[in-house]
């Protein structure tokens, strides 16, 4: 019980400390900021160990089992008992991880480029494929639509039609197509934006501007809710003025 109350007080004071930054930089904020940096760095330090290093490296290899920290056999145990286990390749990951740490030794620090190369290589390969699929191909699919949504037009109610329904039926597809294609033209780098190309690019930039405005407007609501949540914490959980 004491720890619960104490915790709420700590949390409330830290909340106020961070908010005080809005007035101006001050020692309380500085304290909170330093605490935040230290605590969060430590939090990630611990989490990355338990969530990545331990299960992916030490458990897979069987080092934890050797040390009696886990019941499950890893690659070492399997190999010693005569079964092949593909996880033995994780030894290489261990070596790469050590190479990374060798950066601390300035003479052979360059060896850290090897693990870096593995990281960057897998990023490049993976991103190339996933972005091509989900951002290029499926957006092409979404853009290949009839100029007018004939089925929607047929399904329009004769009375009490809303603006959304009307727009979706007659103009929706057209706007989607024109917006996507002209927006793409805006990103065309290797030709000067003049003439027809320039005109299209100009329409494109207007679409981008609407997009930015709309997403901004939409996000405002969500962000306000975050603050309301903190205010309820302060006035409710901490001070108990509102329930």
């Amino acid at each position, binding site marked *: 019980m004491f720890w619960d109350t104490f915790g709420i007080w*700590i949390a409330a004071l*830290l*909340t106020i400390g*961070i908010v005080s930054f809005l007035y101006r930089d001050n020692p309380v904020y500085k304290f909170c900021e*330093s*605490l935040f940096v*230290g*605590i*969060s*760095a*430590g939090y990630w*330090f611990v989490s990355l*160990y*338990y969530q990545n290093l331990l299960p992916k490296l030490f458990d897979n290899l069987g080092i934890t089992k050797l040390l009696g920290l886990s019941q499950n056999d890893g690659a070492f145990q399997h190999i010693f008992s005569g079964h092949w286990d*593909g996880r033995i390749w*994780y030894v*290489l*990951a261990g070596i*790469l991880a050590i190479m*990374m*740490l060798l950066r*601390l030794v300035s003479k052979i620090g360059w060896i850290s*480029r090897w693990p870096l*190369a*593995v*990281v*960057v*290589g897998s*990023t*490049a*390969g993976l991103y*190339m*494929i996933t972005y091509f699929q989900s*951002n*290029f191909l499926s*957006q092409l699919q*979404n*853009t290949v639509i009839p100029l007018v949504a004939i089925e929607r037009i047929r399904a329009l109610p004769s009375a*009490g039609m*809303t*603006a959304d329904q009307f727009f979706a039926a007659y103009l929706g597809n057209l*706007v989607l197509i024109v*917006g*996507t*294609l*002209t*927006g*793409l033209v805006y*990103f065309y780098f290797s030709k000067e934006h003049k003439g027809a190309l320039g005109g299209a690019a100009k329409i*494109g930039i207007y679409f981008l501007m609407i*997009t*930015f*405005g*709309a997403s*901004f*407007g939409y*996000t405002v*609501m969500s*962000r306000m809710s975050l*603050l309301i949540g903190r205010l309820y914490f302060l006035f409710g959980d901490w001070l108990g003025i509102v329930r």
Partner: protein
Amino acid sequence: MKREIPLILTAIVGLTFVVQFFVPHYPMGFLADMFSDWFSIIAAAAIWLGALNLMRVSAEKIYKREKDRFYAGVTIASFFLIVIIGFFFSGGRSFQEPGTRFDWLYINIYTPLMATMFALLAFFVASASYRAFRARNAQATVLLLAAFVVMLGRTPFGDWISNVLFLPEGWGIANLSNIIMNYFNVAGQRAIMIGIALGIVSTSLRIILGIERTYLGGD
């Protein structure tokens, strides 16, 4: 040695990911999964470098008696506090379960700091709207109007304005806001996404081929 091997490694690993997408046969999928795990392992090991750097920079501030030395001390102390509690006093692997000491730190220190920092966005969104949304030119005006309509369309205030303007049912600001969100916004987002895809494919290709090698630094 210093540059060639990394370039070859990058190419091999990168191509593995591309090939495994088209070749389901063993061992491509296995290799790709393994390389993803390797990334996590290398990154988890590398945090030692980051943490040591943070400790060193902070310790130096104390050592050199800089005016921020008290705060540097706070950083060092809080880092060690949570690390020691996380590793030794929170039940090992189940360190995140409710009721552990690590969980107490998480709930009462980490969460409020994080949530409040996040909540500051409410203030910044307001000041950014005041300052930045000026109808300076046609483009800015369009941006402003879109934001305006969408913002109004999501609140009872928007309905009220629609009523004042005698807009018919179903043709109010909320509907206009839906149209902007579902069509204009989607079209713009798509153009941006396609462009990004092309940029990423081309950048990745250059990395795999060793044309883009800034990340490796010099010799």
